[in-house]
């Protein structure tokens, strides 16, 4: 039998009668969205039957007994369930008592049309056709959530068809919510059963996981992690090679024209970091938490890193140019990556000369290794620029160090084109952890459970996640392989243990949840290669690519 959502729409039918309302019984196939563009399939017999009760505003079983007996019986309604059509603007509800077994999910959905005619729609997931009885079973479920009040549904168990998919579940929850809240706006939800996201029909999911369908299933739901909005792209002059969104106040980007840019929001560039003579390959906000002075670090293909500083307090609307306060020279070849210590005192950089170098970020200069250069710039005030050599050099990689990360105070992680993932002890310079992945790696991030999972991507379309705490295993614990080209960036979400994003040369940014193998969302706004991506303000994804645009996808609620 078809399980569908029976929709009874009460509407004023102008052509049928002048003042009366008519019942239109419609079925929605399972999984189809009610709101979007509802492909409503008419049940002809029922419709015609219902039209005869045009003036009847009371919804009774008798009114509903149609050619299809089961329908009417399933939808056992309270005799006092009435549609009050008092003509006022105040929306009213049909209170539908469902059977104790909850074989019917009856939800009143109320929408207001522009003409002021209320449209009542009762949606009930129910058996419509007795001929096709019981091809899909019903499952007792209870929806639970960690979301706050407006997102909570009643905690009692209800029965839903087992062939519902995520979309179907989302529809059910939305309907349940809208029953309790007239101003409810449709919201996509994601569902979690036993720590696994539902990505197939419930039936298949339960079968695959070996969960008994006999007892009441607890389904946790939360807002689907997907971008709701796409901001206006922020246009650069050249390819955007690096993005850092670790500071909620602004986004830092690096560009192939050698300039770094600070964006306060989409399209609003406040500062331009000028100084590099070649493309910037990586950027990093050194002290995201500090209030007064923001220190930024950029790494460039001109073999230097530069440190920049500006005060948060001076608000500017036009882009102002900043000169670096410190130039870090020492790498013999292009610097590929830069990462800062949490405290902000040190930064490290990986380079094509196979080394990782550590640098001081403070302005104090020490005798011996610091030289001061004074430079006149267009007869303006003298700017002091420090040049400083590295504090330490970590040697060990046999090829270009493509990415570094500094998640803990004393530990640096690096990936390289020599296929290795290493972690270094900053104090001693020893390699703590060396791990061969088999592919040249391009990007790295540390995060997830206990901030210790390593996510890395490289010269193949697979994002791999290792757990360095597991001894003796070299195989990744997770592999995400929906991209079609090299992975250029991967970033863990700051707050969540499960969520990370990955960007690829195929022009897509994908959001991943460790609890499912499918991407949660694919952001396909870039026309060209995506070179870098990051989270921003916990609910935005910023990405820059070869189309010279910084794209911000916002409205991603990560619980």
């Amino acid at each position, binding site marked *: 039998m078809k399980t569908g959502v029976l929709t009874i729409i009460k509407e004023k039918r102008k052509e049928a009668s002048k003042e009366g309302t008519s019942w239109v019984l419609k079925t929605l196939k399972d999984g189809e969205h009610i709101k979007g563009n509802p492909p409503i399939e008419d049940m002809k017999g029922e419709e015609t039957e219902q039209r005869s009760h045009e003036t009847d505003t009371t919804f009774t079983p008798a009114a509903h007994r149609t050619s299809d007996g089961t329908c009417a019986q399933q939808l056992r309604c309270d005799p006092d369930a009435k549609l009050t059509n008092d003509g006022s603007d105040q929306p009213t509800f049909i209170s539908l008592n469902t059977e104790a077994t909850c074989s019917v999910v009856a939800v009143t959905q109320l929408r207001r049309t522009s003409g002021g005619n209320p449209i009542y729609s009762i949606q009930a997931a129910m058996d419509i056709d007795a001929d096709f009885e019981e091809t899909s079973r019903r499952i007792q479920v209870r929806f639970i959530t960690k979301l706050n009040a407006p997102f909570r549904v009643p905690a009692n168990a209800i029965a839903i068809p087992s062939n519902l998919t995520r979309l179907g579940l989302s529809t059910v929850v939305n309907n349940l919510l809208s029953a309790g809240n007239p101003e409810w706006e449709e919201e996509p939800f994601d569902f979690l059963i036993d720590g696994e996201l539902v990505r197939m029909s419930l039936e298949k999911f339960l079968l695959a996981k070996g969960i008994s369908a006999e007892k009441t299933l607890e389904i946790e739901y939360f807002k689907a992690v997907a971008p709701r909005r796409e901001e206006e792209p922020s246009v650069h002059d050249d*390819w955007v090679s690096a993005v850092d969104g670790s500071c909620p106040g602004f986004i830092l980007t690096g560009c192939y024209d050698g300039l770094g840019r600070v964006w306060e929001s989409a399209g609003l560039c406040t500062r331009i970091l000028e100084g590099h003579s070649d*493309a910037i390959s990586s950027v990093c906000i050194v002290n995201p938490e500090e209030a007064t002075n923001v220190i930024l670090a950029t790494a460039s293909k001109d073999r230097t890193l530069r440190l920049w500083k500006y005060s948060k307090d001076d608000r500017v609307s036009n882009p102002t140019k900043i000169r670096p306060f410190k130039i870090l020279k020492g790498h013999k*070849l292009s610097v590929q990556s830069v990462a800062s210590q949490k405290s902000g005192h040190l930064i490290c950089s990986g380079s094509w000369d196979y080394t990782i170098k550590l640098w001081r970020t403070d302005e104090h200069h020490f005798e011996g290794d610091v030289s001061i250069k004074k430079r006149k710039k267009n007869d303006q005030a003298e700017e002091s620029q420090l040049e400083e050599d590295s504090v330490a050099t970590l040697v060990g990689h046999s090829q270009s160090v493509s990415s570094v990360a500094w998640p803990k105070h004393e530990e640096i992680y690096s990936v390289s*084109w020599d296929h290795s993932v290493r972690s270094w002890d900053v104090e001693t310079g020893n390699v703590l952890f060396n791990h061969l992945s088999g*592919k040249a790696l391009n990007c790295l991030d540390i995060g997830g459970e206990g901030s210790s999972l390593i996510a890395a991507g490289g010269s193949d*379309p697979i994002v791999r996640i290792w757990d360095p705490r597991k001894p003796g295993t070299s195989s990744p614990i997770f592999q995400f392989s929906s991209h079609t080209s090299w992975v250029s960036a991967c970033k863990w979400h700051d707050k969540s243990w499960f969520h990370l994003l990955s960007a690829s*040369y195929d022009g897509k940014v994908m959001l991943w949840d460790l609890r499912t193998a499918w991407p949660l969302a694919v952001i396909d706004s870039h026309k060209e290669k995506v070179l870098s991506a990051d989270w921003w303000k916990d609910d935005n994804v910023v990405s820059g690519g*070869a189309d010279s645009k910084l794209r911000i996808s916002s409205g991603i609620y990560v619980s």
Partner: protein
Amino acid sequence: MKLKLDSESSQKACKLQKKHGKKKSHVNESDALLEKQNNVEQHLGQEAPTLDEAPLQQHLDSAPPSDCNEDHVEAGDNHGNLENDDDQENGSDNPILDQVDEESDSSEDEVAPRNTIGDVPLEWYRDEKHIGYDISGKKILKKEREDKVQSFLASADDSKSWRKVYDEYNDEIIELSKEEVRQLRRLLKGKAPHADFDPYPSYVDWFEWEDAKHPLSNAPEPKRRFIRSKWEAKKVVQLVRAIRNGHINFDKPKEEQHFYHLWDDYSSSTEKTTHLSYIPAPKPKLPGHDESYNPSLEYIPTQEEINSYQLMYEEDRPKFIPRRFTSMRSVPAYDNALKDAFERCLDLYLCPRVRKKRINIDPESLKPKLPNRKDLKPYPTTCYLEYRGHKDAVMSISTEANGQWIASGSLDGTVRIWEVETGRCLKVWELGEAVKYVAWNPRPDLPILAAAVGVDVLLLNTGLGDGEVQAKIKEILHVGTLPGTENSDKTPVATWLQDDKIEGIRLRHFKTVSAVEWHRKGDYLSTVMPADILFSFVLKAILIHQLSTKLTQKIPFKLHGIPVSSVFHPTQSILFVSTKKDVRVYNLLKQKLIKKLKTGLREVSSIAVHPAGDNVIVGSREGKLCWFDMDLSSQPYKILSCHPKDITNVAFHRSRPLFASCSDDGTAYVFHGMVYSDLTQNPLITPLEILRGHKNVNGRGVMDCKFHPMQPWLFTAGADSVIKLYCH
């Protein structure tokens, strides 16, 4: 009471049988007979006494009447037990007999007769209270006799009562076992009590000897007749030794008797014959339905079909057109009879017949055993990155020593430098003329690019590297005026010119330069000008330039053919020069020819030297790729013909056992080419992957392929103006 049934006492049994036979008619008469049967009585135990007992007698009288008669059993014996017994007697006697044997033996040993009175008439004790004395001398008292009526009633109740026999001697009632009954029955019939006793055994004359009738001597058999002869003993020993040494083999397979098929025509026999064997003539076709005088309608061609025959060639036309006749009589004579017979004769006589030899070989077994591709990973398989920007076919690519950059030269007159990682074009030189060849200086600290453009070789400063490197390059790429003036007296083979526009050196040649190769130290570079043969005889087709001194020299060797390319040995000062036919290997220090590799190819197009220097691959315009092992021979070690079209380039990986070839058919092949340091082991060559993706433009496919210096990645440059990177 047990019967003495031992088979060894067969003679006794015989006697017994005889006696019994005499008395069978009187069996049921009375006790009177009993005393006469002393012997029997002893042997049969209690058989005799039983017979005077009433129950048994009665039973024997009534129930099995056959007991009395000779022909008893078959005649309507309705007593199941007896019948069964007889059946058993016929069927499976032996086990039961054995059982009885055991029983009787053991019982005899164990139980001595309790009554010790011996063989005396029991009448003597008739009036006594006791019946005799047991072994300790005590009286054996008579038991209370049952009333006759009572015993009768008891016997009537008891279905086995007919088996019960009273043993007067021991004063007790014994129940006969089936076996005993059966034996009794046999005795009554006059047979031996044992079923397997053969009363008529074949006579064995133990006392016969050869001339028993007329003995020559009456002397007894001599002793030697009973002793094994020594000769025989020796013979036996001989045989034993032969068996031990394996001269005599018992496991020989039996030779099958060979029959030959008398009527076989031997055409299908696969036997090899040295002589000319007879090959039978093909059999003529037998007549079928359509040759019948009255074939069914479907065999008759319609008029249209007959007409269509006229349009056919004569060979295809059917020889015989079926027709219907009402009777055999009306069938006319066959027109072509004589002709057909003649042709058949010709066929038999003139037609050559050849026996075809067929070999059944599994085609899989012909394939060489190659290692699994999965074990040879990593190697390039998938294209993830493309470098787009050229407007025309990319003729040549070259990777920087670190693998961060890649340079390409195209027919659109540009040289470009790309960032490998992102596919970004870093730099473009517009040179105005088609770029034939680009080569990156192999030294990582000297990022100079050589490009062959028309008659010039340009040395370009890529602008990479830090200040020191740049200063060094600037110095190197500066041409003073001095070298030009020095060479002015001779005719300079090439002129070094400073080119300010491109900030490099322009090396002007006589003819179009087709290839540029750097020496590993980055100071020398060789250029090839594939002009006509005459020109190459003048020893000017291949030039070696020195960058530091800005000098040019000719190679002092005679080239036999048009040079195609020249490659420096990766470790020694050896130059490989390939002409269209062969590859010559010159030692530059000693200035002599070391080796000549004969390719056997029509036209060599490209050459690459293994990083160890002992192996060379050569690609040809006919799509073949030759692998030369220089230590092995001057002939190719392996020839791989995979490409249907010209091979445009071949390449070795710098550190991994990989090599590749690319071709105008739009594909590039990747091979595994493992060279072992052990000189006795031949290189292992395995094809790994066909890389497709390039489009064919103007009949040209992939123009160049180069491996990434570190990663197992392959760059291919296509005529479709795209450079592709294939990753593992």
